[in-house]
C-alpha cells in the first residue's frame, strides 16, 4: 500500500474544510435548541442556502454576496418554520421534517438553470510571510475567510449564551417557557429570532458547500450534512466548544473515508459513506446511556410548543 499520498497537513486542511459546513449549521441549531425549539429542518435550510448562495454569487459575480445570499435564503425559509410552530402551534418534529422535504424540492426547482456553472472563486486568506511558513502556514494561515468566521461565530455564541443578559433570557425560554412568560418575556418572539439565526447559519453552511467545497450546484448536494449537524448538537451536549470538537471529528471521518478510497483499500464505498452516520448513532447511544448527564444539559422545554394561556 502506498501511504505517501496521506499527507497529514493536507489531510487536516481538508478536514477543516469538510467540518466547516457542519460546524456552521450545528452552532445555529444549538442556539435554536437552547431557546427550546427542535428544528429538524436543518438539511432543508442548508440546501436552500446552497442554492440561493450559488445564485447570488453567480448573479453578482461575488463570493461574498453568495455567502450573504445563502444566509438570507436560510433565514427566510426558517421563518416559515418559525411562523408555523410558534404562532400556529404546529408540531415541531413534523414541521421540521416537512421543512427538509420542502427545502430539497424548492432548491432543485430554483437551481435547475444553474447546473454545470462554476461559481466565482472564494479567495483564501494570504498573510505575507505567515502563510508561507512550513506546516504552520498551511494549517493556520491559508484558509478561506469562512473558516475563521465559523470559529469566531462559535466564540460569539458562547459569549452570548453564557455572558450576556439576552443569552440568559434565551436559555430561560428553553428551560421553562411558562416561567419566562410569567416574568414578562416574549417567548414566541425570542424563539422566532433564534430560529432565524439558526436558519441563517444553516444557509451559510449550505452556501459554503456550493461555493467552496464542491464548488458547483447539483441537486441534493448537502447530502445529509444537516442531519449530522443535528446529531452533533446532542453529541456536544449543547455546549458550543464541544460543537467544534464534534464537527471536526466528523469532518475527519469524512476525509479519512475519501483517503482510504484513494489508497485503493477494497472496502465498498457504501460502508465508508455509512461511517459518519454509524458513528453518530453510536455516539448518541453512549451519550444517552448516562441519562442523568444527558438530561441535565438538555433544555427542559426542548420541542414543546408554548401557548400563553392568558
Amino acid at each position, binding site marked *: 500500500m502506498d501511504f505517501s499520498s496521506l499527507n497529514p497537513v493536507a489531510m487536516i486542511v481538508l478536514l477543516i474544510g469538510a467540518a466547516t459546513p457542519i460546524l456552521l449549521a450545528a452552532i445555529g441549531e444549538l442556539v435554536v435548541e437552547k431557546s427550546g425549539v427542535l428544528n429538524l429542518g436543518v438539511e432543508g435550510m442548508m440546501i436552500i442556502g446552497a442554492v440561493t448562495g450559488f445564485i447570488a454569487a453567480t448573479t453578482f459575480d461575488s463570493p461574498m454576496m453568495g455567502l450573504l445570499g445563502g444566509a438570507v435564503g436560510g433565514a427566510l425559509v426558517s421563518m416559515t418554520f418559525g411562523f408555523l410552530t410558534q404562532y400556529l402551534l404546529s408540531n415541531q418534529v413534523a414541521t421540521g421534517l416537512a421543512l427538509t422535504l420542502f427545502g430539497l424540492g424548492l432548491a432543485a426547482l430554483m437551481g435547475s438553470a444553474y447546473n454545470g456553472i462554476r461559481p466565482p472563486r472564494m479567495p483564501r486568506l494570504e498573510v505575507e510571510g505567515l502563510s508561507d511558513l512550513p506546516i504552520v502556514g498551511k494549517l493556520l494561515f491559508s484558509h478561506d475567510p469562512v473558516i475563521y468566521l465559523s470559529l469566531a461565530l462559535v466564540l460569539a455564541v458562547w459569549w452570548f449564551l453564557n455572558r450576556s*443578559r439576552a443569552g*440568559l*433570557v434565551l*436559555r*430561560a425560554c428553553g*428551560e*421553562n417557557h*411558562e*416561567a*419566562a412568560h*410569567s*416574568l*414578562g*418575556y416574549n417567548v414566541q418572539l425570542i424563539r422566532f429570532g433564534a430560529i432565524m439565526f439558526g436558519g441563517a447559519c444553516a444557509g451559510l453552511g449550505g452556501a459554503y458547500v456550493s461555493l467552496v467545497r464542491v464548488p458547483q450546484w447539483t441537486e441534493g448536494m448537502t447530502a445529509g450534512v444537516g442531519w449530522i449537524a443535528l446529531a452533533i448538537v446532542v453529541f456536544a451536549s449543547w455546549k458550543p466548544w464541544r460543537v467544534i470538537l464534534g464537527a471536526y471529528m466528523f469532518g475527519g471521518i469524512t476525509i479519512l473515508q475519501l483517503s482510504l478510497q484513494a489508497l485503493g483499500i477494497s472496502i465498498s464505498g457504501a460502508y465508508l459513506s455509512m461511517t459518519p452516520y454509524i458513528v453518530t448513532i453510536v455516539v448518541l447511544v453512549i451519550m444517552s446511556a448516562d*441519562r*442523568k*448527564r444527558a*438530561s*441535565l*444539559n438538555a*433544555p*427542559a422545554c426542548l420541542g414543546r410548543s408554548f401557548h400563553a394561556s*392568558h
Partner: protein
Amino acid sequence: MGTLLEIGGLSKSYPGVKANDDISFVIQEGEIHALLGENGAGKSTLVKMIYGLVKPDSGTMVLRGEAYTPAKPIVARKSGVSMVFQHFSLFEALTVAENITLGMDDAPNRKELSQKIRTVSEDYGLPLDPDRLIGDMSVGERQRVEIIRCLLQNPRLLIMDEPTSVLTPQEVDTLFSTLRKLSADGVAILYISHKLDEILALCDHATILRMGKVVDTCTPKDETAKSLAEMMIGGELEIHAQTEFTPGEVALSISGLSLASKDPFGTSLKDISLNLRKGEILGIGGVAGNGQDELLAALSGEAKVEAGMLKIADKPIGQLGPNERRSRGLLTAPEERLGHAAAPMMSLSQNAFLTGRIRKHLSPGGVVNSRKTNAFARDIVKQFDVRTPGIHVAAKALSGGNLQKFVIGREILQEPSVLVVNQPTWGVDAAAAAFIRQALRQLAARGAAVIVISQDLDELMEMSDTFAVLSEGRLSKPQPSEGLTIEEIGLMMGGDLEGAAHV
C-alpha cells in the same frame, strides 16, 4: 398609614364562567391583607389582574392615588407590585443569581448582584448562596429565591399565592417572621391562602371571595377558624368523625426498598422498610422532592425494583409491572392529575378504562366492552359526585377538584387491597377534600390498606392511623399518629428521623 391600592368593581369573564364579578376592596400601606376563598373562587384571576398578567374586562385600580392599569408584569413591577407564585417561576438548570437577574428589569452586574443577594437575604433571615443551582435546592429554599427576587426591587406590595403549601412547619415560622418584618418596614402583603390558622396568625384584614364575588370582609383577630371557614364555604362546616382502627394481617410488606432516581434533580430511595396492615391508613409526610414521586413509582410498578423488596400476601411483586400489580390488588393514584393519573385529551370513560380494564374485566378477549366501560365511568361520576356534563367529556375539561374525585373514585371502586395515593387533595377545595378523605377512610374500614403521601400535615393528622416521614429518600419508622405534635413532625421533616422516633 395611607391607602396603597384601591380596587373598584373589577370583573373578568372567561367563556362560560364569570371568574371575578365586581370585586372591590382596599389594601393599606404596610398591612398584611388576606385573600381567602376556596379553589375556583377567583383568587388567582384577581391577583393576576393586579400583577398585569390578565386584563380586567371592567373596573378600576388606584395605586397610591394614581390610576393603575398594568398591561404587563414589567409595568406592575415598576409600580412596586411584586408577586411570589404558587408554582414557582424558576429555572432549575440556572443558578440563584441568574434566576434573580431574569426577574429584574435593571439588574446590576454579576458581582454586585451576588453581594446584594447575600445582604438582603441575610437581613430578612433567608440566607441564600447566589451560585447554587436551583435544581439542587429544596422547595423552601426555592421559595426564598422568589421572595428575594421580589425584595431586590423594593416592592410596595408583595403578592404571595399560597406560599406555605410546600413548607415544613419550621420554614413556615421563618417565612412568617420575614413577612412581619416586611410589613413593619411598610411593605403591604396580599396573602392568598385557604389555610385558616395561618390567616388567623398572620393577617390584619381579610377579604373573602366566593364564586368570583366578595362575600365578606373581616378582621381575623376577631374571628375563629370555624367562622372563617363558614364565610368561605357559605354554609355549616361538617366535621367527620374518625373511624376506629383495628389492624389486621399484613397487606403489603416493603423491605429494604432502594431505588435510584431517574430524574437528575430527583431523590433516590434508600432502604425503606415497613409492614402495612389491612385496615390501616399510613400517612407519609415530608417536604416535596424528598422521594415522594420515586416512592409512588416504585409502588405502582412504573419503576421495577428487586422482586423481594415488595411483597403482597407474601408473594414478591417487585419485578411486576403496573398491570400485574393491579391484578394482585395494588392500585395507585399519582399526584399529577393531568398527564399522569389521567390522559388529558381522552374522555372520562376512556380514562376509566385505562386503569379499570383488568379488575373490572372491561376488555374480554381484547375487545373493549363499551357498555361495561361506560357503566363503570358513570358509576364513578355518580358515587363520587363528579360534576361533569357527561362521561364523554375530556379529562382536561374538568376542574381540578372534580378530576381528583374522579381519579380517586376510579381506584376506590376497583376495591383494591392496597391503595397508594400521592397528594390526594392538592389544590382541591375544602368540600371536595373532605369528601375524598371520607372515601379513603371508608375504603380502609372495608379492610383495605391505604398509603396517603401528602404535604398537608393537617390532612395526614386528621385521617391517618400511623404516620411516617420521608426525608431525603429515607422513611422514618411509622408510629401511631395520635399524640404526635407538630414540633416533633417538623423535626422529622428536617431530617431528624431518629430523634423524633424515640419520643
